[in-house]
């Protein structure tokens, strides 16, 4: 018998309820309007989501067209793997190959689009003070984390990004086949002329951030785990703050929408999709 007074239901209830109000670094703010970190020019009532995701943690959320999603690398050593789905029909999802091929560029940054496999924009990247991101290497998996840290299991101290993404996707009824090629935010991969990958591993100054705009109703799944090519022997990754708020649907005169002929057509395809 424990000495916590939990030998009977009433005692267990009192013990459980006594925990209320505990604050830790990595937790959601509920309601989001009670935000700890209100974005500039945003009303608290417009907040949809605020959560600090720990190193090794994950999160998933449905966001509607026009919503903004901000990721802040609070301490400079986050690595956020991201999947994106069309929330209405999740067999439409982020296509990393199309994203770089259609935009004729392999490096993500402000003004770039995240494209689906149906020729539409799932999200656009409004702001980005990091500019070191990775569309090539994908998530760590249990085997790679076991090699790097001795253990990569979802229930151990060094969870891998693929299985964190799987859990996030599973919360929306999705499964193994839905964990598609991802983007890694905050850790950069550059390609040398011989094709080799150069990791920009940081750690970086704290507070680097990016803001996405949902261009469709989307499910985003995030996993915050060390980059698969991170060569440090310790499982090193710091928390990321995730915030989302309501915003207007992209207007026809939007600068990103009209930035390239490919972008215009991708937005036209979205606008056609929502013609209902």
């Amino acid at each position, binding site marked *: 018998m424990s000495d916590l007074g939990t030998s009977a239901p009433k005692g267990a209830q009192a013990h459980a309820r006594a925990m209320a109000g505990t604050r830790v670094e990595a937790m959601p703010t509920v309601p989001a309007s009670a935000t700890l970190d209100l974005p500039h020019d945003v009303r608290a009532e417009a907040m949809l989501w605020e959560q600090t995701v720990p190193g090794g943690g994950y999160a998933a959320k449905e966001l509607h067209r026009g919503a903004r999603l901000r990721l802040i690398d609070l301490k400079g050593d986050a690595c956020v793997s991201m999947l994106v789905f069309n929330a209405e029909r999740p067999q439409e999802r982020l296509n990393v190959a199309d994203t770089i091929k259609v935009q004729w560029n392999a*490096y993500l940054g402000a003004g770039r689009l995240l494209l689906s496999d149906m020729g539409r924009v799932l999200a656009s990247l409004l702001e980005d003070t990091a500019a070191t991101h990775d569309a090539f290497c994908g998530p760590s998996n249990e085997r790679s984390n076991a090699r790097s840290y001795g253990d990569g299991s979802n229930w151990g101290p060094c969870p891998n990004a693929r299985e964190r993404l799987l859990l996030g996707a599973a919360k929306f009824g999705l499964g193994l086949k839905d964990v598609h090629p991802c983007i890694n935010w905050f850790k950069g991969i550059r390609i040398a002329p011989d094709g080799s990958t150069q990791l920009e591993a940081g750690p970086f100054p704290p507070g680097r951030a990016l803001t996405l705009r949902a261009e469709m109703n989307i499910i985003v799944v995030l996993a915050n785990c060390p980059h698969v090519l991170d060569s440090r022997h310790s499982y090193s990754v710091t928390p990321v703050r995730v915030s989302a708020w309501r915003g207007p649907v992209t207007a026809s005169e939007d600068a990103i929408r009209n930035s390239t002929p490919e972008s215009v057509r991708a937005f036209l395809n979205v606008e056609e999709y929502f013609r209902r």
Partner: protein
Amino acid sequence: MNDPSPADPPGRVVLDERVAARAAWDHVVRAGEILRIIDLEGNQAVDFLMYALHDDAERYSAQDTIAAQRNIFLRTGSVLFSNLGNPMARITATTVAYHDTVGGACSCESNTLRYGHHTQSQHACVENFLHANARHGRSKRDMVSNINWFMNVPVEPDGTLGIVDGISAAGLYVDLEAQMDFIAVISNCPQINNPCNGFNPTPVRVLICSRKS
């Protein structure tokens, strides 16, 4: 089968088929067998996916493959990894300097972005992959980033990337030694709006050879 016997097959030939221009193809390859794909007329992109025979939720992963070898180009010696980090196949030989695995497959939908809505009715690799996979109960959720044999996608220092003129030629080939039993799926690329097929889709030849003993 009208093609002459290959001069120097990598083992005893157990299957020898021609994949028509623009067509889909799939076949089981057993661990230890070698799959040879021959670019018969030159600069014909061959879009390629693999699914583990024991469970098709395990499949080729371009990202795991790139991370494992720290390089985006597939060359002799490259190991092709699954999404679970298991080796599926190894390139035991190729007479082309390198192959692509970042450019993805053409689709009717991405063609509307890259070239305009006038291309939407043209045949595309995703159509072939969906067609071949549907015969085995797989669907759109089984589409992932693929390999493009014989396709050239350089990345410049500022990140600029694109499908450019090929570096393959008639008769060049790639040999893949299976490390597990898998289903190979090919789309013999029908694209006519970029140089991946020299603007002229052509047939390719596929051999499956048992291991030389």
